[in-house]
């Protein structure tokens, strides 16, 4: 599906020694980790571990005080803003599902569809047949075909999550950052989501932040544990769950 012809990079995402402090409070403290091309990675950690701030740094919302963030080996993300980064091929799903509630599902996807984001281009924009087909394909993928012309605001919480994942996919990103996709979903929906994310990975790199251990188990992928703004442990879910330090952090001392 990836129409862009790019060489395959060594690291899709390379985060090294990133520190972010807000008025003395270090939200991220010398954080380092890498994501390989096609990798699916889960990130867990207690509240305030710095998961959202990490996403903010990667997507350009927050500039780090120190450290490097590179995308596809060569692109320094700290030098770009949100829109740039999105167009470079990094998609982000928020913790709280944010779709454009007063546009239809179709229009939401049309908006996210990869293409020129210029002001005048959008003023005279018309959909080509292939673009239309692509939108229909994604609508089917996220299971909203029957409601395509309804307003996104009318969707249930879980459906909004799916629409947002659809918007992410249609951007055709190389790296997806997904913040708590299973929140507010039924068990069945959760399982479906895990399956979808596993399918997506391979073609693209996916980083999932989640609290739900069942969901992480279903993802069946390497896990990184964040604590107080840095990496506490890395490994499979089993390894991590048996790590002394992780147990201490999660259960308290």
């Amino acid at each position, binding site marked *: 599906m990836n129409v862009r012809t790019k060489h395959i990079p060594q690291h899709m995402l390379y985060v090294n020694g990133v520190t972010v402090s*807000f*008025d003395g*409070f270090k*939200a991220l403290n010398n954080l380092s980790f890498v994501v390989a091309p096609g990798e699916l990675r889960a990130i867990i950690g207690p509240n305030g571990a710095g998961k*959202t*701030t990490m996403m*903010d740094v990667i997507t350009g919302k*927050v500039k780090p005080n120190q450290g490097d963030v590179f995308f596809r080996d060569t692109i320094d993300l700290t030098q770009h803003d949100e829109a740039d980064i999105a167009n470079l091929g990094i998609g982000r799903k928020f913790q709280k599902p944010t779709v454009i509630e007063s546009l239809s599902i179709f229009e939401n996807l049309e908006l996210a569809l990869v293409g020129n984001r210029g002001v005048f281009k959008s003023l005279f924009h018309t959909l080509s047949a292939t673009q239309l087909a692509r939108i229909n394909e994604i609508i089917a993928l996220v299971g909203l075909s029957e409601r395509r012309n309804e307003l996104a605001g009318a969707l249930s919480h879980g459906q909004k999550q799916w629409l947002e994942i659809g918007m992410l996919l249609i951007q055709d990103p190389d790296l997806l950052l997904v913040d708590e996709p299973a929140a507010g979903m039924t068990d069945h929906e959760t399982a479906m989501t895990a399956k979808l994310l596993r399918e997506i990975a391979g073609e693209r790199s996916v980083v999932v932040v989640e609290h739900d251990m069942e969901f992480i188990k279903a993802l069946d992928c390497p896990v990184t544990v964040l604590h107080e703004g840095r990496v506490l442990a890395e490994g499979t879910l089993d390894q991590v769950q048996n790590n002394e330090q992780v147990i201490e952090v999660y259960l308290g001392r």
Partner: protein
Amino acid sequence: MIRYFLNIVFMLAFALSGVQFAQADDDAFGQLVEQLGGSNLRNKVQVIEQIAALEDERALPVLEALMNNALYQRKSDNQFVFAADEDKQLRLTSVVSGEDLGLASSRDVRKVITNNSLRSQTRTLVAVTRLHSKKNEVKLAAVSELLKSPDASFLAPLDAAIAEEKNPSVLKALQVARGAILLGNESEVERLKAVKAMDGYNSKQVLTLLQAQLDVESSELVRKEINDVLGGLKRAETGYKFVEDLFFGLSLGSVLLLAAVGLAITFGVMGVINMAHGEMIMLGAYTTYVVQLLMPNHIEASLIVAVPAAFLVAGLMGVIIERGVIRFLYGRPLETLLATFGISLILQQLVRSVFSPLNRSVITPQWMSGSWEINGFLSLTYNRMYIVLFALAVLFGLMLLLKKSYFGLQMRAVTQNRAMASSMGIRTGWVDAMTFGLGSGIAGIAGVALSQLTNVGPNLGQSYIIDSFMVVVFGGVGNLWGTFVAAMGLGVANKFIEPLSGAVLAKILILVFIIMFIQRRPRGLFALKGRFVEG
């Protein structure tokens, strides 16, 4: 000239014996005053000299009145009176007994006849009498008079006064006055001494005198000395001008602070955009007006009554607005802006309908008028001083309330986590209403202060609303210290830009500056940082 001199010698001789004279006959003053009537001006000259020699406390006011051509006789009983304007009538005071004789029409009195020569002699006598007064202020006032028109005839009485003066600052002033007279002396040495005597005396009159002398001075030595002294005085003047500007700026800042601090509560703490905030200030000002109407005989105390009254009126209005309109609009700031703007229009029209569209005059009590003369270059007006103090008191009172009281605790709890506060049993609706009432009430108090500085009219509030928002946003929303620094900073900046660019342009420049500033730092001077702020 000789005649003047003789007069003074005569008068001085008289002064020495005056004490016994006054004791011998208690009513000598009264008898002498009686002789001021009629049209025999030559006789009057002698009479005033005798009055001046009496060392009677009542002498100075009579001479001053005569000098200003404001001494009257009541037609009905030929009694001599002072007359002061009051409500298009004259309030008469007996010259001799000091008794209040009530109001009278201008037709009931007749002016005591004087002429130019009599008045100029009176002026001399007044100056000399003042120099011998027991009060330091009176002596200093006499020096100030002398500096306006230094005349050799005053030399002798000045010397006499200098000889017996004990107070160093008065002595300095007397010597400056003596110097001013001797500046025209033929002797170079005397002129040099005169200039030296003036060194370091901060007075605009001295500055003018020396400047004038510099144009006609022939001696190089004296010129140099004058330049030295002038240089020192000008440096002092610049320094004091700076202090005065700073004070003016701070008082302007205090006005801004008063206007903005209520907004810092409603906008800064609650996040409510209250466009009717200016009208709360206006209500406070009108409350002051009404309070003065209700207690016309106690104007001095009216402001003290008006402060709580204005707080209650504006605060109550605030509670009504919050319960009636704003509470339905929480989380919709733009709608709140529009609705409260509508309320501001209604309140303006209400005031127009009730009180008329014209400005109402609020009386300034005696204790707020006048100024504190620190020296010839620096005087601070009392009303501005009180406003600075008042603004600070309001700010610190508010801080104390927020930080220390139980209500403040509830308020902070509700603004930080409404759901949690509510589940802990805090009546959030009540806290909202009270907080909004508090912010509005403080705006009302600001109105009392503003009524002393500007016209009280229906548009009073409008002129402050934009400034207030600027102050709050500039200082950083939700931060009272920020509001304080922003208000004072803007006040002082405004005052210092004003002479360079004119008042209106200064205001425009400040506005443009703030607009640019907000664009660079949208969250103000003292913004909180972090991911929770934007949420």
